[in-house]
């Protein structure tokens, strides 16, 4: 084998790779093919075959997935012929997946931006999640004003003594860019940018770990993850109790919603949403989250 033929083979391989990679790049942007695979409403009604292979695929927020998994299990117990698949990959992915029909339902853990809504996209709020601001139990602070939280997170207040605590620097802990919790928190406390010198943890669980591990730290988590290793603060004197949340007194709350495209809605999806609005499910939800008002 001489060098010339070796070079020839190498060139050939590179050309194949390049053409293959551009091809896959094209199909990614090509929605038409994928849409065809999804049965139109007319199909689902008339063809019984679709009913047998019934599946609901749900993608989206990792925070909401914790709740949806419980609900899906309860649903499948009642409807053994319907299989629900849940993938937790973030709120942004949910929007993308519902748009290109790779999922029937998307789990979203914040309000949708107007730019993210497409015509025909429906949003059903299934529960309220509460964001708790947490500190280390050894810290003496019990209450913070909302504007103090904003100032801590934008990096203007850097020592606990300024807001009546011990003389120690504030260790600000935040979440990774793009997580629903991060975006919800940022908009709820009304700041554009969280200080770059904040520690970034990659989940509610590791947030709790980090706050529990450092006496001077402050963090925020979804209420469902709270345990006694951290101390929950009241905000403007209001503690996140169920009553305060339902009366809109505690303001750090965000919706968990399901999104879908009305025209492509399968029968199973309609059943699933009806199931979620049932009284039985509301009692499951209320164990850790706040169910919506029954004014549908």
């Amino acid at each position, binding site marked *: 084998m001489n060098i010339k033929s070796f070079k020839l083979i190498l060139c050939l391989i*590179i050309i194949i790779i390049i053409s293959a990679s551009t091809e896959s790049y094209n199909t990614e942007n090509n929605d038409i093919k994928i849409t065809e695979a999804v049965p139109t409403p007319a199909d689902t009604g008339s063809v019984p075959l679709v009913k047998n292979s019934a599946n609901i695929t749900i993608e989206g927020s990792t925070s909401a997935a914790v709740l949806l998994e419980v609900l899906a299990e309860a649903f499948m117990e009642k409807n053994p012929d319907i299989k629900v698949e849940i993938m937790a990959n973030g709120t942004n992915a949910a929007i993308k997946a519902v748009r290109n029909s790779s999922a029937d339902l998307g789990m979203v853990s914040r309000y949708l931006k107007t730019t993210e809504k497409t015509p025909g996209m429906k949003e059903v709020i299934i529960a309220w999640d509460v964001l708790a601001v947490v500190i280390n139990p050894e810290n003496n602070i019990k209450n913070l004003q909302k504007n103090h939280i904003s100032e801590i997170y934008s990096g203007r207040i850097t020592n606990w003594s300024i807001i009546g605590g011990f003389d120690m620097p504030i260790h600000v802990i935040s979440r990774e*860019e793009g997580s629903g919790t991060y975006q919800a928190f940022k908009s709820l406390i009304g700041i554009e940018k969280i200080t770059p010198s904040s520690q970034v943890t990659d989940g509610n669980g590791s947030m709790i770990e980090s706050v529990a591990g450092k006496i001077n730290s402050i963090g925020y988590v979804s209420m469902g993850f709270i345990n006694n290793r951290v101390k929950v603060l009241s905000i403007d004197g209001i503690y996140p109790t169920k009553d305060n949340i339902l009366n809109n007194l505690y303001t750090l709350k965000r919706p968990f919603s399901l999104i879908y495209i009305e025209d492509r809605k399968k029968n199973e999806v309609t059943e699933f949403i009806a199931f979620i609005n049932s009284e039985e499910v509301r009692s499951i939800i209320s164990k850790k989250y706040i169910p919506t008002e029954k004014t549908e």
Partner: protein
Amino acid sequence: MRRGGQDRLLIKTRNRKWEKVIEILFLLSALISVFSLTAITVYLFAKGFPAIWEIGIMNFIFGMEWNPTADNPSYGIFPMIYASAAGTVGAVFLSVPVGLSAAVLLAAVAPPSLANFLRPCVDLMSGIPSVVYGYFGLTVIVPLISEYLGGPGNSLLAVIVLLSVMILPTIIKISENSLRTVPVEIIQGSYALGAAKMETVLKVMIPAAGSGILSSIVLGIGRAIGETMAVILVCGNAAQIPRSVLDMVRPMTANIALEMSYADPFHESVLFGTGVVLFMFIAAVNIVINVLSGNAAKFKDKPPHYLL
């Protein structure tokens, strides 16, 4: 292939076909690695470069602010480049003296019984998964730093200490091997001239094994700069330029791993762009050290000047 020409004349024509088949098989196996390298490179650049282009190469590489999901987003990765570089350089500075000394011990000083005990230990060290190193760092190194040196503990220093431990086995193994391949004539010559044992090790063996030691450092750098899982756990992930080793940092690998799962398409493309920079970084390090070790190899063929 060409050197064996003389012997090949003795092989019957019938067998040559098989020779050819096997040769091609070997070539194909070798091409698989070339193939994967090309595939990854093409994919990385195809995904990452459009975003870099849109942001502007200068804004991307020298930008100080990383804020990809804001309404007015900024995509500067300089703090992460700095963190990757500082972490790697720091780790190499800590690790090379220790690793080289350990290699000398294993290759030339330790009695066989001790060396036979230490060598498997080093092997075992390289087999520990990086997430375990990371967890160890998080639960042992981070609290220690926080307690004795102050700061949050999650810091550049924690990254440096952890990485230097992680690259130790690479440096020890390869340096030891290259010290062992130093021709025995050179060592005997050194003794014959009246040099003591340590003098021989420091002035003859280490210079003669220079290229091997350098390549152990390159591999160490490669591992340190590409390490992700362990680093994510101890670095604190703050996208800022650290003012001291006790400040939190976010290396490029951590940035990619942390944000990839939630990223929208453009953000994802920017993360691939971070990968492109990381890739170029590693390529540059490899080229520089290859040139250096080329020089060292030339030096190796000549007898050290003080022996003349």
